[in-house]
């Protein structure tokens, strides 16, 4: 490892540290609206996007089913904990068992999706998971006993997170979950399981001849990432207090993909960077007269430009800039330019 590279790593770490500190003191720095609406949304969207980036960076699987699993968790929670007055089963459970069972249901669905998709690779995997996502959305839209078109509203939030009594608590809980998810994903990537997964990403055939069960590893990775996405779904329901099929439709699926790609499909940090860009654009673009109602055109153009200029997203641009300035290992740059295939670092 060259000196320049290690100094870049320490620069990245310093910036990361500063950002975490800023996030911890966000209620003192930003307005209440920013904290409650933008930053909280950024954090849980980042969790969902991070589950996608984890699969893509370490498993070579670009999954579009993350929003479907997130929706399954949200709808399950809605069905279990509401108590009359809305669509769905209205089982009226307490919050804690509701959350546990909702996560379990989402995990089972992620297992089924993973079992069916894990024998497919690359672009096939993307297409199959996209189909799962759209079908899940249609099922929630059509099956009136679990939701129906209008969705479930008035989903109870745990008392200690109540927005009126404690405006910042949901933000801090979301922040804590996001940090735990980030650390957990980094940790899993370094375990023997994570290393095997990266081996499978690079050469499934070789890993298979070394005796690893390739399909099983991919399936487990998918289920694990689904679980992370499901946590994002629970946070979303707390934040939004309702969930409808349209919130997990194709456009939401694409939104999460856009977030992951804008951030960078090969580093977990990109998830929250992409989410921040997305949330800020989403919130302020309508005030710009040229954009107005055409937010999706703007996000489409931003997405197109990013994909054309830097397939590795903003993180890729940042690395290229810092690496370029310090003239570090040529291999790194070649890797970045090489292809659209995600090339994770460490």
């Amino acid at each position: 490892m060259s000196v320049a590279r290690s100094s870049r790593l320490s620069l990245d770490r310093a910036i990361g540290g500063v950002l975490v500190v800023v996030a911890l003191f966000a209620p003192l720095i930003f307005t209440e609206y920013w904290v409650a609406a933008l930053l909280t949304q950024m954090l849980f969207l980042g969790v969902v996007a991070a589950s996608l980036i984890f699969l893509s960076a370490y498993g070579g699987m670009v999954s579009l089913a993350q929003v479907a699993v997130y929706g399954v968790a949200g709808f399950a929670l809605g069905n279990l904990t509401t108590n009359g007055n809305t669509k769905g089963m209205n089982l009226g459970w307490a919050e804690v068992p509701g959350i546990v069972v909702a996560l379990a249901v989402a995990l089972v669905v992620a297992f089924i999706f993973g079992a069916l998709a894990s024998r497919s690779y690359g672009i096939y995997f993307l297409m199959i998971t996209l189909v799962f996502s759209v079908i899940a959305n249609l099922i929630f839209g059509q099956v009136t006993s679990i939701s129906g078109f209008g969705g479930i509203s008035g989903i109870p939030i745990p008392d200690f997170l109540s927005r009126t009594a404690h405006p910042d608590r949901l933000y801090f809980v979301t922040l804590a979950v996001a940090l735990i998810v980030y650390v957990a994903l980094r940790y899993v990537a370094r375990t023997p399981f994570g290393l095997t997964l990266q081996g499978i990403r690079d050469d499934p055939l070789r890993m298979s001849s070394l005796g690893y069960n390739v399909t099983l590893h991919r399936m487990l990775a998918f289920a694990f990432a689904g679980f992370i996405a499901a946590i994002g779904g629970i946070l979303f329901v707390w934040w939004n207090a309702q969930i409808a099929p349209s919130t997990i439709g194709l456009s939401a699926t694409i939104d999460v993909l856009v977030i992951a790609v804008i951030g960078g499909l090969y580093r977990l940090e990109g998830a929250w960077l992409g989410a921040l860009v997305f949330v800020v654009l989403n919130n302020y673009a309508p005030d710009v007269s040229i954009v107005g109602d055409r937010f999706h055109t703007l996000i489409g153009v931003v997405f197109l430009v990013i994909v054309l200029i830097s397939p590795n997203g903003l993180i890729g641009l940042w690395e290229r800039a810092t690496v370029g300035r310090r003239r570090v290992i040529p291999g790194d740059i070649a890797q970045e330019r090489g292809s659209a295939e995600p090339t994770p670092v460490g």
Partner: protein
Amino acid sequence: MTELAAYGSLRTIGRWLLLALVAFPVIWVLFIASGTTFGSAVSDPKDFFITLLNGLTAAALYFVVASGFTLIFGLMRVVNMAHGAFFLFGGYIALHIQRNMIGGDSALGLSSAQVSFGQWLFPVIAATFIIAGVGLIMQQLFLRWNQGQDLRQALITIAISIILADQMLAHYGGVAQDISWPRTFDKFVNFHAYGIQYTLTRLVILGIGILIGLALWFWLKRTRTGMVIRAGVDDRDMVSAMGINIQLTFAIAFFIGSGLAGLGGAVGGSFASLAPGVDANWLLNSLIVVIIGGMGSLGGAAIGALLLGLTTNFAAAYLPANYTYYSIIFTFVLLAIVLAVRPLGLYGRPA
């Protein structure tokens, strides 16, 4: 040894389970079908045949759209995620050409009596060629220089479909509209069997599907361009090394493939309506058809379209009356069965 034997018996059980999964719906529809609107096929052949025809005509339209998708993928490994947006755009173009040709108050729509055969055919053909051109421009501007990076190309087409969908919403609004069939087609055909009266428009769609299928088959199997395309599907680099202009072939395939989405949109807009969200549904249909049939295979697209068309129509018609909302689940089950048995689709081959 015992482990192997256990695995073997697991496979046998799996096979029987699969057979049961396929056989039960057939037996249900033919003989049981209790609690459904129509009753079993044996007791009510008329509605059975009408459901069958509905399935076949839906399959014809699925095939027209999905064959374009699979043609582009087979040759270039490009997953055109904008295919659904092209479908909707084609429909809107045909709609506006038709309204401009006839004039009058377009807000209320047209009735078939006002529309002659030419006033339907010309918009449909024009939309086909315009969308073919749009597809060609997209390929030349954005995809040609990214050849071989399939994920990046898919992301580019997703970006374009987002922009197109949003612009269509801005220009054409969110209200569902439809293209009017010509008065020539606006009648029922008497089958003189079980008292079946069937609408001619759906038979026209079936005819278009069969015609497109035959034309594509002839083009791919019997002409020089088709031969180059088939060779390109097997080995692009070798075709290029033989001195054939593969870029020209790519352009032709993209032109035809996108044109089929436009044609599908114009016909589909006459059959059902055009509205935001229709693009997503048709992208979904195309994806399911090619995942079932196998990417890049024309025969696979035909089989996939048939299975999807029949499954959706029979599930909707033959579920017990209180459960018809669950019909979408059968699409997922169909997909799951195919993927469990053949991960690359029925006619899929490894790349």
